[in-house]
């Protein structure tokens, strides 16, 4: 406990609390001098909460010490290039570290924590939906100043955004851990910026969650005004949380791009990079250039509420539909930020488990860039019913359908990779295969939403909810689990329990199919999105009950995973060698990975996935240690 209190995490959180109170107190003082009201429903007034939240987030960063090297440089004090971690065990992960591997694991742990919270919220409202009428979220109940339906709206909205943040942190986790190892780099290009990118996400997540206790908000994760201009003060905390967490995404992406451009091993030309690196580049290009738009659109609503600026207020000449354009200009490409790394994991792992080269490497690499580029010109397909100029619907339908082509290239190439292989199916491979099929379901249920006339029925129903969960589970959740099972031995020197891993897979996959099929089914029948209660006349009560049970089974499977994950760190079977018999450089050295990665630099001397080549050479060759220089 004592060691936790002295950690960067605890210091940061403490300072965030102090900063929040100071910021809120400042505004309250100014308001008192101006003769304005000083307290409100949640003690402080809304402007006080907003400034408090903002100063709190900044205080977290200074308090945790992640900025201290920069502060020293500003004062003219030199710091060592590398910090030797003087923490060990779990303490490494609650303190600031500049090691990309530690940061990768920090990202992953926070992502798992947020997935658990977001999943818990889902189970709460899934329970409410098990039957029509209100079960326990009734209008009489009160919690955090909200009645049942209001709490439902808050939990449902937070489920969306918490999961999105957890996905962004999850992909950063995998990319941070794996990309420098694949490139043969000692670390990311900017280790301090890397640590900063992680630590800024923590106060962002705290802000996001705080909205639950400040009256919540009832807009869904999209936060459309004018509804979001009227919601309780929790709305502002939500905006602020996303705004702060967005920095993590932008700065992290910048770091990945520079690392890949500048720090590849000798001989690693563009077409000899591991395919996951291509996916990381494509996703980072989107995150670097599009994230600003969600921050901006939320900031505009924030200012509309604080200063009465009428950006989206028709009474002041504003335009509510403009918000939707700004919002989706990020939030559609964001979906590709979520899935491209996952698809990269699938492409990276498949050759290892089928013992065959990746079929059409160049085509897969280019298709990631293709998806990223096309993804920028499809945003208005979220707005076919929004009342925007109706002729615009046709070009956006065309551009959206085009996404099918690079995505199709990936599917066909994966099938051709599997074809005629020598296939084994340990847990990571099961999740890869599950990911392909689930993502296919998501891909195939997409075009009916892209084609305007059928979308007019499907939009804002559970059909979309089912489609979206298919794409995200197939494109992120399954590959994320695959990656964790696959690289776990690299990080810990032990492997996760296979039996529990298979149980996790065989529990989650069928339950998930039932869940999303059921969602699409009731969506077609007339189940709208984001409703706390539904008309019993629709005849979908029994389906909803089945969906709730399926939701619980998925929850159970994730609990099994989390137990397996933490238990295997200490008690897992030892696995220090090349467990998967991979050609990739990180598996050519013993696990767990040494602190500064490779003792000897390596040179790329052939193709990354040349499995089955008679007399072929390995992918990388390590240089001989020079006597005297090596320590």
């Amino acid at each position, binding site marked *: 406990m004592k060691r936790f209190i002295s950690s960067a995490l605890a210091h940061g959180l403490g300072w965030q609390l102090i900063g929040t109170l100071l910021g809120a107190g400042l505004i309250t003082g100014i308001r008192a001098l101006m003769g304005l009201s000083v307290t409100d429903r949640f003690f402080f007034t809304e402007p006080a909460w907003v400034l408090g939240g903002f100063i709190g987030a900044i205080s977290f960063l200074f308090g945790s010490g992640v900025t201290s090297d920069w502060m020293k440089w500003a004062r003219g004090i030199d710091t060592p290039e590398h910090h030797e971690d003087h923490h060990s065990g779990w303490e490494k992960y609650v303190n600031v570290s500049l090691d990309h591997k530690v940061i990768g694991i920090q990202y992953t742990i926070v992502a798992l924590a947020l997935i658990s919270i977001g999943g818990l919220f889902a189970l709460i409202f899934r329970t409410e939906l098990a039957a029509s009428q209100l079960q326990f979220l009734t209008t009489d109940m009160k919690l955090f100043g909200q009645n049942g339906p209001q709490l439902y709206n808050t939990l449902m909205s937070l489920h969306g955004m918490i999961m999105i943040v957890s996905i962004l942190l999850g992909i950063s986790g995998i990319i941070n851990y794996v990309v420098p190892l694949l490139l043969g780099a000692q670390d990311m290009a900017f280790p301090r910026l890397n640590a900063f990118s992680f630590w800024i996400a923590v106060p962002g997540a705290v802000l996001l969650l705080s909205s639950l206790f400040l009256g919540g908000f009832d807009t869904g994760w999209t936060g459309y005004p004018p509804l979001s201009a009227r919601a309780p003060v929790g709305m502002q905390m939500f905006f602020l949380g996303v705004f702060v967490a967005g920095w993590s995404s932008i700065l992290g992406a910048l770091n990945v791009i520079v690392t890949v451009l500048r720090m590849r091993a000798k001989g690693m030309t563009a077409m000899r990079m591991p395919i996951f690196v291509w996916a990381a580049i494509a996703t980072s290009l989107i995150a670097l250039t599009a994230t600003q738009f969600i921050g901006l659109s939320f900031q505009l609503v924030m200012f509309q509420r604080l200063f009465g600026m009428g950006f989206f207020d028709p009474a002041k000449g504003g335009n509510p539909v403009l918000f939707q354009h700004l919002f989706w200009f990020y939030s559609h490409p964001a979906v590709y930020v979520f899935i491209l790394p996952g698809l990269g994991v699938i492409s990276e792992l498949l050759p290892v488990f089928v013992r065959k*080269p990746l079929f059409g490497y160049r085509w897969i690499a280019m298709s990631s860039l293709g998806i990223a580029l096309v993804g920028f010109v499809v945003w208005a397909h979220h707005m076919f019913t929004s009342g925007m100029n109706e002729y615009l619907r046709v070009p956006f339908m065309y551009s959206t359908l085009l996404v099918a082509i690079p995505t199709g290239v990936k599917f066909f190439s994966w099938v051709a990779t599997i074809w005629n292989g020598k296939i084994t199916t340990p847990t990571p491979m099961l999740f890869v295969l599950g990911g392909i099929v689930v993502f296919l379901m998501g891909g195939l249920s997409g075009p009916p939403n892209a084609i305007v006339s059928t979308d007019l029925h499907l939009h804002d129903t559970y059909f979309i909810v089912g489609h979206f969960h298919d794409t995200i589970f197939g494109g992120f959740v399954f590959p994320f689990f695959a990656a964790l099972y696959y690289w776990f031995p690299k990080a810990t020197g032990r492997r996760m329990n296979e039996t529990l891993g298979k149980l996790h897979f065989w529990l989650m996959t069928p339950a998930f199919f039932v869940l999303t099929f059921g969602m699409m089914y009731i969506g077609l029948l007339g189940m709208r999105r984001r409703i706390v209660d539904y008309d019993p006349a629709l005849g979908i009560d029994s389906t909803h009950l089945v969906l709730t049970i399926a939701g619980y089974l998925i929850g159970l499977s994730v609990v099994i995973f989390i137990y397996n994950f933490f238990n295997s760190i200490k008690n897992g079977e030892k696995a220090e060698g090349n467990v998967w018999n991979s050609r990739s450089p990180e598996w050519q050295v013993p696990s767990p990975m040494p602190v500064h990665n490779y003792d000897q630099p390596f040179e790329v001397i052939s193709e990354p996935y040349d499995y089955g080549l008679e007399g072929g050479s390995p992918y990388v060759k390590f240089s001989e240690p020079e006597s005297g220089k090596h320590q």
Partner: protein
Amino acid sequence: MRHFVIVGILVIVMAVLTYVGLDAAGFATQMNPVAASAQAQTIDSMWHWEIIAMSFLFALIVAPMAYSLVVFRKRKGDNTDAQHIEGNTALEIGWTVGPLILVVVFAYMGAYSLGEIRRVDPEAVVIKVKAQQFSWTFEYPEYGVVSNELHLPANKQVLLKMESADVIHSFWVPEFRVKQDVVPGRVTEYRITPTLIGSYKVRCAELCGTSHAYMEGAIVVSEEADYDTWIAEQIAIAAAAQTPEGKGQLLTVSKGCVGCHSIDGSPLTGPTWFGLFGSDVKLADGSTITADEAFISQSILDPNATIVEGFPSPSVMPPYVLTEEEIANIIAYLKTLK
């Protein structure tokens, strides 16, 4: 070669089975629920083509995957790698161009079907729709009729001109298929040609606040003769409603008050009006107040002035700007609700 033939057959069998399965569940040739408008039929036939393409593409990927998993498993004791096949440019071009052709075809069909459902009939019946948290109001400008039920004549195109009083709502009748958002500050259009006589519901499809789930309104599609009868009845009611009570009642419908305040004592988002006037009302702060003219007038103009016990604070009701006469009419109407 043998593998390719078997997989080819498997793909076809699986595609057919997928389609037949979806058809048996009632989702291949139509979307659901029953199609009740001309536009719904166009949309359903588009959907049918999409289901055919989806069934085929699903089989095209899953059948060879499943086949490989069974046939190309690593044998026990075999530690060699598989065949070294790096790719095949002709194949890659094939599965880029093939889907491109499919995309072009579907893009054309999609645009065509959108054109069909937006086809304008200049004779269309115009009805004004007003959406507010959490109710729908319909106005027939030709007849001066206001109602919270939408009555439509069958087989005639209707043009709904929709406006929102507060936040974004969305007009969706699942049986009509088409959905259109109602946005504050602009008028959005919804064209529909109902074809099937019956009762339906408009359901708000854009999250609009606490009681969004209950923002529904009745829709009746009837023969033209029945429709005309209903219009005549409504005109008669409106004419008879020249008393203050009658005017007040119409006002509570057109302003959407009855979306949240029941007139029969049943609990909705707001307190019921049944037996309200003159009664003692318990407030959230523990005090009691008599529901007199002053209390009701204040509650309309500033819903946050007092909060009735058991209802959320701050109030979810927006303030309404009404004239003194209008408020007096509403109070006169409330007095009749006993």
